[in-house]
């Protein structure tokens, strides 16, 4: 993989995958070009990839020269595809990222003939590879641990103290494909029509340069400076406090390859309202309200309904928890274990 970091979803998944393969009795190592200092002794630089390896699995989420090494390796090649954001959503915001994304899409198209098997996080990701002519594809969700940290009591108390109307939460990088600007418009409409004390909370690090600034401009233009809070990157304890304190989790992303925060919200009993696009629909499944249109009027009505209809909110909480359970790490881990057992048996 191009980069490995312990605080990254793909990084954590890769570390977990290595354990699954080792438990099956095989040697397994991680090779990466950029390694987080905490993982230096536990991983290898990419040029140490042995030529006599039997199987090489590539974690594909961005374009990289590392992918070429994988494609040229004589071993059986497996791709673990985590999706690449379309260039149309990032191109204007981040020139460097756009170049990497474009390279990734080009590589993805070229590798169909090199790749023996491909594992995809979602059916949406699978459909992209199927369209490109990948012959053997399977959907197995990414392995992750839903955070069960003890909520930060001071953050929880602060959020409760300031609580007035409906508290809407979104967790994710502040990036154009996550459509924070659409959430601002929706909550502005919610305040106008139903609940003039509604508040929007954004949790997540800043993404492409400039997008956060533009969202803040929209917030000011909408007269929402006191009603939208950017919390930035938070600890696991603080994150749980946000999940427990909010009334509804709302995701209006234009592109997601999977969407872990939706599962986390459902796990913590937070009702989910989401725009049904890319992989969001299949991730939410029957555990939340899926909107086919993210017109602010519709989203505002949905948020108000969830915030004011206790029966609906309760059913969403229960259904959400049930849905989140299906992504439990032990389940996805077993699926990967079975997949590799079958694969090795077929070699």
């Amino acid at each position, binding site marked *: 993989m191009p980069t490995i970091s312990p605080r990254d979803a793909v990084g954590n998944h890769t570390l977990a995958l290595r354990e699954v393969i080792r438990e099956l009795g095989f040697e397994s190592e991680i090779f990466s070009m950029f390694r987080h200092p905490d993982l230096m002794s536990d991983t290898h630089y990419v040029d140490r990839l042995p030529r006599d390896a039997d199987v090489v699995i590539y974690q594909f989420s961005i374009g990289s020269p590392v992918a070429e090494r994988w494609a040229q390796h004589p071993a059986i090649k497996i791709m673990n595809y985590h999706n690449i954001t379309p260039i149309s959503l990032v191109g204007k915001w981040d020139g*460097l990222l756009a170049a990497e994304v474009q390279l990734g899409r080009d590589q993805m198209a070229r590798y169909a003939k090199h790749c023996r098997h491909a594992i995809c996080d979602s059916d949406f990701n699978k459909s992209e590879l199927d369209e490109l002519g990948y012959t053997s594809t399977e959907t197995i969700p990414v392995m992750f641990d839903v955070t069960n940290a003890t909520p930060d009591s001071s953050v929880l108390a602060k959020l409760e103290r300031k609580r007035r109307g409906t508290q809407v939460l979104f967790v994710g990088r502040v990036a154009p494909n996550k459509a924070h*600007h659409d959430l601002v418009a929706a909550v502005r409409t919610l305040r106008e*029509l139903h609940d003039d004390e509604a508040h929007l909370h954004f949790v997540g690090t800043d993404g492409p340069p*400039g997008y956060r600034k533009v969202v803040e401009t*929209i917030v000011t233009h*909408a007269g929402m400076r006191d009603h939208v809070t950017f919390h930035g990157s938070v600890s696991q304890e603080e994150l749980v406090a946000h999940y427990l304190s909010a009334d509804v989790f709302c995701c209006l992303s234009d592109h997601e390859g999977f969407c872990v925060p939706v599962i986390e919200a459902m796990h913590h009993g937070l009702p989910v309202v989401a725009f049904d696009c890319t992989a969001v629909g299949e991730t939410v499944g029957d555990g939340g309200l899926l909107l086919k249109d993210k*017109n602010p009027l519709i989203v505002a009505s949905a948020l108000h*309904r969830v915030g004011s209809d206790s029966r609906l909110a309760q059913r969403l909480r229960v259904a959400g928890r049930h849905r989140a359970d299906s992504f439990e790490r032990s389940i996805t881990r077993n699926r990967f274990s079975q997949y590799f057992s079958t694969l090795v048996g077929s070699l």
Partner: protein
Amino acid sequence: MSDSESDANYFKEVVAEIEAEAQRRSSSGEYPRALLRSLDEEFRRWIPDASLENGVEDTIRSIEAAAYVDPAVPISSRSSLGRCVKWIVRRLTYFYHRHVTQQITALGIHVTRPLRLLDANLKSVNRRLAALEDRLDVDATARSELLVGLAISSSFHEFVESLGQHFGQVSGRVLVGDLANVELVRGLRSAGVDAYGVASGSAPAQDAVDVRHEHLFDHLGDLENESLDGFILCGIPDYGSVNEQLRALRLLLLRSKPGAAVAVIVLHPETLAKRLSPVATDLLHGRPLHPETWDYLLAREGASNISVVESSESSHYLITANFL
């Protein structure tokens, strides 16, 4: 029915109710339509163009960040012995690594300096381009929407005879553009003038009349200098901005041979004002120039025999001239 199916059906019903409520509010105008539209416009206004704004700078920053090469090789290892061995090797080879890395760092700095210069130049060009765009007509789309259906060439047939006489002695090609009425070309060809039209609008049936369907400026851009024996400028003087009108005249003169016969058909400014709605009057910053202005412009370019003919309803003027 399982709990999951029951929930799924219930949630679908709720979404249908939500959509119906939203539809009702939308129909009755019970939502901040203007505000939402302004938020959308505000967002579109601020979408950057990374390739212009920060693409180069970000690239340079990343090169600069990578330009410094650390000569201290990492010594982390699974075993303490390995770490110790690596530390000793690093100490022994440090002079060598430092020498090599210093040269690589120097190279990186020398690479980024001209890139910085290039970036500054690009930004300067972008600033000047933006200033230029502000001065030019940036509302061309809005203007063209307002001009749809505006019949401004109905009196052309009155001028066919005068034009036939003016271009009667011209032996070569005469361009007519931006053409809105093929009858003008047909009439000229009947009078023995080798006329052809250039029309940027939709293509009606032309009955074998020689009309090119492309934008006048694109057509003039493809022509050789001094390839025309004359031209009739129409259409653009009626709705083009002053800048477009002057540019069209300049290009036509450049593409015309010495001695070319020229004509300009122009709507009377007051006629246009009467035909336009208040919205169009406010937003169309292009105005037909007065015949006196065309007289002045043509004389300034060295034209002679300038004459002005008015149509019967005083809605149009024909200005003819010859160049030496």
